[in-house]
């Protein structure tokens, strides 16, 4: 059995890179060890750090004791790091570890819809930590994590695009394994409401209809026309209730008369100037 927690005089790095060792940099806040370690694991980039104070406030953990085993030991583990002298076997450590992950995830679901949590997620959003929308007309809109359920074990985390209002699979297989409940169903809506003035996009109305030698394929063109009719009905409805939707936040990229804004003209140029749509980041 490999000894996991040697006492080194020097700060110890996670040499093998698999994140299974605590970094004991003696000077820093000992209390945040477990969380720092957890956030440093590859694939956990979507999580923000939850304040220890929030975790220690029993009120915030209401109802979670039915979800997590050995609750108080697990809380100790997350907030103190497990005492290095404390003798436990690998099996028990793994068990505690799994429960700690789950507890942290469920607390995270609640935390990211508090003011502090929302602000932390806002920074991550601006930093595109949740990735970009790959839909061409969304022009690399930053995404937000979303859970399809608030219960653990139902589905993995997905990504929400505020521009096309659609839900996408994470690109990386590591992210595709994270439980969606750790982000929850409410987060993106709450996030957009909180930061509406800053983050609500203008929605693109451009769309693609498959063509053969320049001619639209009928089935698609017909559906697209019907969909456009639905959009126009909504525009009318909103305008009649006094909501301006012409090229404003949470409106459409249309002119005041309702006609679509012309998409930017693409000039032909050298191959090096080819629009690759991701070079603009």
């Amino acid at each position: 059995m490999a000894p996991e927690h040697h006492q080194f005089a020097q700060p110890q790095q996670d040499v093998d890179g698999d994140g299974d060792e605590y970094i004991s940099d003696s000077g820093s806040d000992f209390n945040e060890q477990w969380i720092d370690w957890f956030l440093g694991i590859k694939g956990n980039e979507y999580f923000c750090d939850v304040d220890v104070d929030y975790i220690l406030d029993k009120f915030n953990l209401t109802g979670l004791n039915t979800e997590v085993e050995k609750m108080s030991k697990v809380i100790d583990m997350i907030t103190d790091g497990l005492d290095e002298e404390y003798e436990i076997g690998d099996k028990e450590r793994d068990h505690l570890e799994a429960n700690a992950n789950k507890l942290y995830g469920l607390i995270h679901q609640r935390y990211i819809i508090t003011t502090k949590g929302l602000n932390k997620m806002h920074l991550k959003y601006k930093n595109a930590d949740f990735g970009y929308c790959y839909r061409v007309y969304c022009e690399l809109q930053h995404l937000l994590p979303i859970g399809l359920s608030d219960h653990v074990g139902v589905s993995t985390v997905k990504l929400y695009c505020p521009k096309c209002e659609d839900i996408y699979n994470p690109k990386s297989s590591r992210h595709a394994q994270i439980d969606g409940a750790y982000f929850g169903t409410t987060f993106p809506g709450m996030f957009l409401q909180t930061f509406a003035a800053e983050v609500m996009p203008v929605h693109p109305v451009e769309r693609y209809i498959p063509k053969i030698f320049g001619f639209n394929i009928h089935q698609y063109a017909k559906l697209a026309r019907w969909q456009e009719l639905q959009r126009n009905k909504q525009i009318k409805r909103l305008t009649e209730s006094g909501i301006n939707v012409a090229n404003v936040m949470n409106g459409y990229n249309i002119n005041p008369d309702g006609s679509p804004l012309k998409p930017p003209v693409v000039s032909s140029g050298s191959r090096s100037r080819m629009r690759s749509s991701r070079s603009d980041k």
Partner: protein
Amino acid sequence: MGENDSSDFETWISNFCSLYGHDYYVEVGQDFIEDDFNLTGLSSIVPYYKEALDFILDLEPEHEIKIKDQALVQQSAEVLYGLIHARYIITKPGAQLMNEKYSKGQFGCCPRYACNGSKLLPIGINDTPGVETVRLFCPDCFDLYLPTSSRYLNIDGAFFGSTFPGFFIKMYGLDNPNLRPSDDLKIFGFKIHEGSNVGSRMKWLRATPSTDEELREFDEVD
């Protein structure tokens, strides 16, 4: 031709198709390239046309190419091959080769959750080379996506062309939009009101007629 079967000889075409990021390309049949009809108009688009064509077909150049021109001819050969490729994949044998890649999901899967891993097809929104890089088309949501891997960032969309996916889905009977709308955004389980400043605006994009009234409306849009 025909003498290129020795095992250590790699043709220009198979080398080109094996380069990093070139795995969307299929190998264009030699007979297709040798038929002048298929190349109509390309000589006026591609500089060093004759030399470039010799490169592609592994032919000795008629006149020796100056060292300083070699890189330019190679570049022209790549553009020429790409443009021939765009024409080839909308022929039956070309589409068949593309179908082998498509069936294996080699162009990737639709990132949209509701599309449930629907396989994508490459497309060039613009048929002029040098304008836009390759995009991907989903036959289910009929939307366009960027390739998720950076290795395709330099692949010219014109080398696949704007007709390919349409042609392909017609040929293989995949030409049916199959939209599964995504769920509404909710806050504590409640739908957000349309009039809210974060209310939904894009439902139309994934909508399909389902009620009697909508179906009637749909019949009338023609």
